[in-house]
């Protein structure tokens, strides 16, 4: 077994894991329930995509992809900062109260947050 084969197998497995992570993050982006939840999920999405780009670059041995990964990280950071400013000026704007993602109406976490 030569070294390149090990890298190929590991990269394939890693790409499957990263795809699964992307799927979970997209579920959170769709379900919300509030704007900061979606912003945090988008932030993690950028992080996972950076890992994806690095893995693809490693498998294909095209190391110029690293520059794209670093540029994407910069864009993601600036986007999160801009979104944070936006949340600060916007306020809650009628967003839902905090809930567990799978809590029903009878759950201890549903409804208003205890104060």
């Amino acid at each position, binding site marked *: 077994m030569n070294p390149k084969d090990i*890298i190929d197998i590991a990269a394939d*497995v890693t790409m499957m894991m990263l795809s699964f992570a992307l799927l979970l993050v997209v579920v959170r982006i769709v379900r919300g329930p509030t704007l900061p939840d979606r912003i945090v999920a988008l932030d993690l999405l950028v992080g996972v995509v950076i890992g994806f780009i690095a*893995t693809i670059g490693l498998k294909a041995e095209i190391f110029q992809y690293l520059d794209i990964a670093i540029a994407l990280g910069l864009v993601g950071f600036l986007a999160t900062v801009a979104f944070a400013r936006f*949340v600060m000026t916007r306020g809650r704007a009628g967003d839902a109260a905090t809930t567990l993602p799978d809590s029903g109406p009878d759950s201890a976490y549903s409804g208003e947050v205890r104060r």
Partner: protein
Amino acid sequence: MTMLFALVTAVCLLIGGAFAIVGALGILRFPDVYTRMHSASKAGTLGSGFCLLAVAIWAPDFSVTTRALAGVLFFLLTAPISAHLLARAALIAGYAPVSAGRPGDVSSTLCPPDRANELPVGEEHRSV
């Protein structure tokens, strides 16, 4: 020797993928935005960081290694900053954490949850 480098690279890749899954699971399962932020900024950063570290180990020349390590350093520096800014903005905007009102809660000193929606725009800095 090349075999050793390949093994270390493969292990780094797999650790990175595992951390990405852990971060994504945390963001799906945790109850509020602040706990989700903790999962996303720590596990997520390590996920992409380990993938970049694998590139740095396997890279054929020194310039690629340097760029990959600079990328890791950049993400380690920016992830806490963006998470802190977002947590502060969410708290000031009035998103109460699940621990609000329980012993040890400090969020209501930044912005009391019951008048969170009444804060006019521009007023939010004064309440800090």
